């Protein structure tokens, strides 16, 4: 059973515009959420995280929003750049287990066009 879902396999955005990537989760024990970015033939690279006690975290062009009641988080990239083209994975950890294992979504492939 997949506990982290990224329902959009792909997204195309023009350079300079906002990219919004969405993620839903089902496990109410998740208390820490992360976004990873992956280029082909490379491993995932950490991008940004948020704890469940917050509803927003910002780092430069990247902002993550968390809506606990809806069990939904989103990643906003503003402005989008061609170098942002990659696969983005949403991940979460469950404090009721060891809390170290990350549960990943299937990823959303973002294409930023010039």
């Amino acid at each position: 059973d997949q506990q982290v879902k990224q329902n959009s396999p792909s997204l195309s955005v023009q350079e300079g515009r906002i990219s919004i990537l969405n993620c839903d989760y089902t496990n109410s024990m998740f208390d820490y959420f992360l976004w990873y970015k992956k280029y082909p033939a490379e491993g995932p690279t950490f991008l940004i995280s948020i704890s469940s006690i917050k509803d927003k975290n910002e780092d430069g062009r990247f902002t993550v929003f968390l809506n606990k009641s809806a069990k939904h988080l989103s990643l906003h990239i503003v402005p989008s750049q061609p170098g942002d083209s990659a696969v983005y994975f949403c991940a979460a950890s469950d404090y009721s287990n060891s809390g170290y294992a990350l549960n990943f979504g299937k990823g959303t492939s973002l294409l930023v066009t010039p």
Partner: protein
Amino acid sequence: EAGVTQFPSHSVIEKGQTVTLRCDPISGHDNLYWYRRVMGKEIKFLLHFVKESKQDESGMPNNRFLAERTGGTYSTLKVQPAELEDSGVYFCASSQGGRKGIQYFGAGTRLSVL
């Protein structure tokens, strides 16, 4: 500083053979993780070491998989005997500190079982 290193980058074996994957974590990282991504699916947690001890092996699919971390440094993941469904990309990650420490991923080993 060197990142997480995995080898081989690609391994092609026949069903029934044995394969050993290796991971060298970032120096000083006590936590080491193995994940696997089967084609079309999400990245799934396999197990977590703290130094040389297995902290959580709840994601290991069956007893054909054996992970070790001798001396708390590098780790190996052996699959014996390999089955067709074991094909996928095996990622290793390492982190320091507690459960919210950033997990740094290697580029992965692509395993093809024919």
